[in-house]
């Protein structure tokens, strides 16, 4: 029963927190670029406006697939907060992502299709590391159960510095920030226009934004799990990591997909797998 309440609280709180974080992100980014930036509540204004716009639905599946994606992503975050199995949460998130790709494929626009191609490549680059992180947490704490991880007495970070670094590296992919914002990005200027989200308009795009909020909170929660035994250290670590991501976003150009895939896998292999093997040998 308790788990249910936690799950629902998580689902309800996520948009609020993620929207605020998004707003602060935009202000800091603007500051870094020498600008003033929008109000902190700007992401909420954007989403509310998008809901009030006309929805240009291209075919029968288009909007429904986005809704499916939302359901699975929300479920992933709900399960995470309910303290269920970590692996299940990650798979729910991946399924949600796949539905988004399907929605993009269902349209006939070349930008959207290429964006979907790239989104799949991004998943190929990022998911191994996220899975390794889950495995690493299992090896460090002896369980996949989030409740037990969170109530454990020691943090996973002391066993898993390499995995943690690898996770930060692929985080730019999940947060859709430079240098790895290949499939779609918050700024317009790129060769695919908006890539994955080119064909979404109005409410569909609003759902897309909300999905992104849930994803952000999910990966941030994953970072937190590394410090689960000390909540305050965990929250500070999450904030530092997020700031680091903004900084990386602003000091890098967008790279090409081959470099992204190669470097993400090399980092995953060396830091992720290397860390796990060391842990396996030493334990």
């Amino acid at each position, binding site marked *: 029963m308790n788990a249910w309440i936690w799950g629902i609280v998580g689902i309800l709180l996520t948009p609020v927190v993620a929207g605020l974080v998004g707003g602060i992100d935009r202000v*800091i980014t603007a*500051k*870094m*670029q*020498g*600008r*003033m930036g929008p109000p902190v509540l700007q992401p909420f204004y954007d989403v509310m406006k998008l809901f009030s716009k006309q929805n240009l639905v291209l075919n029968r599946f288009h909007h429904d697939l986005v809704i499916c994606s939302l359901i699975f992503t929300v479920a992933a975050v709900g399960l995470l907060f309910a303290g269920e199995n970590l692996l299940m949460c990650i798979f729910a998130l991946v399924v949600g992502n796949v539905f988004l790709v399907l929605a993009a494929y269902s349209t006939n626009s070349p930008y959207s299709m290429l964006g979907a191609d790239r989104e799949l490549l991004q998943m190929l680059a990022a998911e191994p590391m996220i899975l390794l992180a889950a495995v690493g947490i299992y090896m460090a704490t002896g369980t996949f159960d989030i409740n037990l991880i969170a109530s454990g007495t020691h943090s996973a970070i002391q066993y898993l510095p390499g995995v943690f670094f690898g996770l930060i590296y692929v985080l730019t992919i999940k947060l859709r920030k430079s240098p790895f914002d290949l499939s779609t990005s918050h700024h317009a200027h790129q060769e695919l226009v908006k890539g994955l989200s080119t064909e979404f308009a109005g409410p569909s795009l609003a759902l897309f934004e909300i999905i992104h909020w849930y994803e952000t909170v999910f990966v941030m929660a994953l970072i937190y799990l590394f410090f689960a035994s000390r909540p305050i250290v965990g929250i500070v670590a999450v904030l530092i990591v997020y700031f680091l991501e903004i*900084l990386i976003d*602003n*000091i*890098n150009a967008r790279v090409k997909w081959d470099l992204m895939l190669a470097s993400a896998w090399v980092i995953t292999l060396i830091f992720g797998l290397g860390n796990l093997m060391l842990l396996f040998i030493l334990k």
Partner: protein
Amino acid sequence: MSDILKMFTTVIKSLFKKSTCRQYPFKKPVFFDRTKGHIQIDRERCILCSLCDKRCPTGAINVDRNARTWAINSYKCILCFRCVEVCPVTCLAMQQQYSAPEEIKKSEVVEIPAKAEKAKA
């Protein structure tokens, strides 16, 4: 390694520095002495010679001698300064304040008082 940090100092500096934003419209726009904004007419001095009308490259200025009006369509004006140069009585001048955007295009019409009235004034 340091190759990926080239932008680092600039970005961090501007994060902590005050923004260079001019904050228009909350603060007044910055103008220079020579800033080109819009053409203004001194109606007392105009003699309706219509040289500006003839010389305007875009046909933005319209002088009607019978109705005694001088009209400028700011949506045609390209701020080339030509009318100010040719005006024999220097009654035209460039003002710094730009003309405001509107929902309908309309000319700004100025009535030129007749000589007798001028003398009275």
